[in-house]
């Protein structure tokens, strides 16, 4: 079976072979297999050294102190630890949290849980191109606000949040600021000596590292306190217990070091490829790029092919591994909540495909994606009664549909 072309780098990335090699060296008897918490012998010391080296590599990418990095199992756990950890520690100061409607479920579902525990959450509306502004945040902050949680780069539409501007607002108002940066490492420069962020979530697997490992940046100056969510041996200064997974951690460190080294070259190439993709389809009628045209990362192209339903489009694009904004397969029949939050109508939301481009994408991959997409859209529009109606000049909003 011929494997489809992978254009889903926003979902995950393959581990860089250079990273995989280093990880393999931390598994077997001949390798660095010790428990980093073992203080009484060289196996433990070596493992600890590898873990601390990786901690420095992660800290270096974001210009932080290694002591500000806490290992977790991934960005979902980091988000949980940051948001619940702050809420549970600072609840006497206030019970109000601010986030947005286009956050990842790891943030939204955590906020829902806190609502059940008696916290109040404000969900900010993005602009139609997916921007949450510092001004909006400033207006939403109240006396009892303890935390603002926003993502750096949106996973569906690739739009970038101005965390430096928002950090100025939150710091001035003495409100903690958490940023989910799962989608931004290796794509955007992050400098936490400049951006006033108190907590930042990371994972390795969107940046050519392994799945199952992540980190939370917890600021030391000013000092941020957290209530631990996982208790045990008091690892990670009590914030997150559990034996450290040396091979995973080494993988994350190496992946982040490569990201730092190669980010500019990677970005230039990926930007060229995304532009090539968009140039290859944009002349078709009723095709739209979703999200802000310039305030976005290079690798994400979320495109709506109007009057074509996303799942059937995916079916025609079986030679491509991409995602759809339509969640018909999940039986919910709901189009993406992110696209809906931008105020997009349902047909357009159902018609969207997220192409995400990465380190191993080639020009020939993109050219094939263009050809397959064009052919599929032409074929499905031939089949689409909505396309007929559009061509006949019927306003679809004026039609009385029987919702089912």
């Amino acid at each position, binding site marked *: 079976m011929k494997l489809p072309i992978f254009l889903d780098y926003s979902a995950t990335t393959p581990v860089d072979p250079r990273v995989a090699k280093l990880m393999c060296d931390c598994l077997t008897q001949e390798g660095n297999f010790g428990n980093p918490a073992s203080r009484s012998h060289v196996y433990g010391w070596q493992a600890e050294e590898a873990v601390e080296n990786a901690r420095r590599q992660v800290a270096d990418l974001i210009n932080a102190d290694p002591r500000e990095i806490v290992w977790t199992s991934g960005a979902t756990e980091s988000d949980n630890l940051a948001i619940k950890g702050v809420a549970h520690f600072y609840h006497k100061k206030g019970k109000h949290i601010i986030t947005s409607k286009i956050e990842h479920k790891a943030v939204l579902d955590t906020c829902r849980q806190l609502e059940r525990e008696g916290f109040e959450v404000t969900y900010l509306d993005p602009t139609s191109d997916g921007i949450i502004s510092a001004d909006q945040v400033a207006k939403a902050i109240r006396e009892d606000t303890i935390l603002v949680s926003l993502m750096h780069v949106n996973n569906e539409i690739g739009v970038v949040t101005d965390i430096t501007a928002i950090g100025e607002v939150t710091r001035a108002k003495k409100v903690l600021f958490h940023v989910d940066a799962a989608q931004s490492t290796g794509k955007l420069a992050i400098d936490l000596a400049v951006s006033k962020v108190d907590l930042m979530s990371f994972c390795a697997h969107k940046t050519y590292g392994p799945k199952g490992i992540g980190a939370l940046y917890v600021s030391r100056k000013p000092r941020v306190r957290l209530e631990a969510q996982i208790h045990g041996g008091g690892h990670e200064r009590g914030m997150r217990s559990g034996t450290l997974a040396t091979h995973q951690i080494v993988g994350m460190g190496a992946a982040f070091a490569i990201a730092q080294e190669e980010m500019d070259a990677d970005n230039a190439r990926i930007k060229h490829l995304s532009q090539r993709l968009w140039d290859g389809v944009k002349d078709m009628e009723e095709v739209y790029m979703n999200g802000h045209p310039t305030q976005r990362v290079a690798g994400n192209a979320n495109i709506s092919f109007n009057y074509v339903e996303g*799942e059937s489009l995916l*079916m025609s694009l079986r030679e491509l591994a991409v995602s759809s904004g339509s969640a018909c397969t999940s039986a919910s029949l709901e189009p993406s909540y992110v696209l809906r939050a931008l105020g997009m109508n349902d047909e357009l939301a159902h018609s969207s495909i997220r192409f995400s481009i990465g380190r191993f994408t080639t020009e020939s991959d993109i050219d094939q994606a263009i050809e397959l997409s064009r052919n599929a859209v032409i074929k499905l529009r031939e089949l689409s009664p909505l396309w007929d109606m559009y061509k006949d000049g019927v306003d*679809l909003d004026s039609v009385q549909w029987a919702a089912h």
Partner: protein
Amino acid sequence: MAYSEQVLDHYENPRNVGKMDEADAHVGTGMVGAPACGDVMRLQIKVNNEGVIEDAKFKTYGCGSAIASSSLVTEWMKGMTLDQAGEIRNSNISEELALPPVKIHCSVLAEDAIQAAIHNYKSKQ
């Protein structure tokens, strides 16, 4: 998700795609579904003076199973009387296409489209 061979066949080679003149007294048109729900089917039948469906056409905006369901019923309906066509049930469609539970609504929609087309034709007589 995995699609059955029958769904793939109708999806790759949809039968009877097209549009007939809605104003023609011999033509019945049924349009069901809504863009917001991710599927819209337009099914049209042409009925002769003996009450037999001579031709059927469809266009569908929706997932592969919705396209296959409507393509299948156009094949079935040709040569049927209106009464016979009116007896096609969603279970016949879902069984023929081996639809998984999450896709049963596609066959329900196709049954609705048949009923709507017959109703539209009868209302014109």
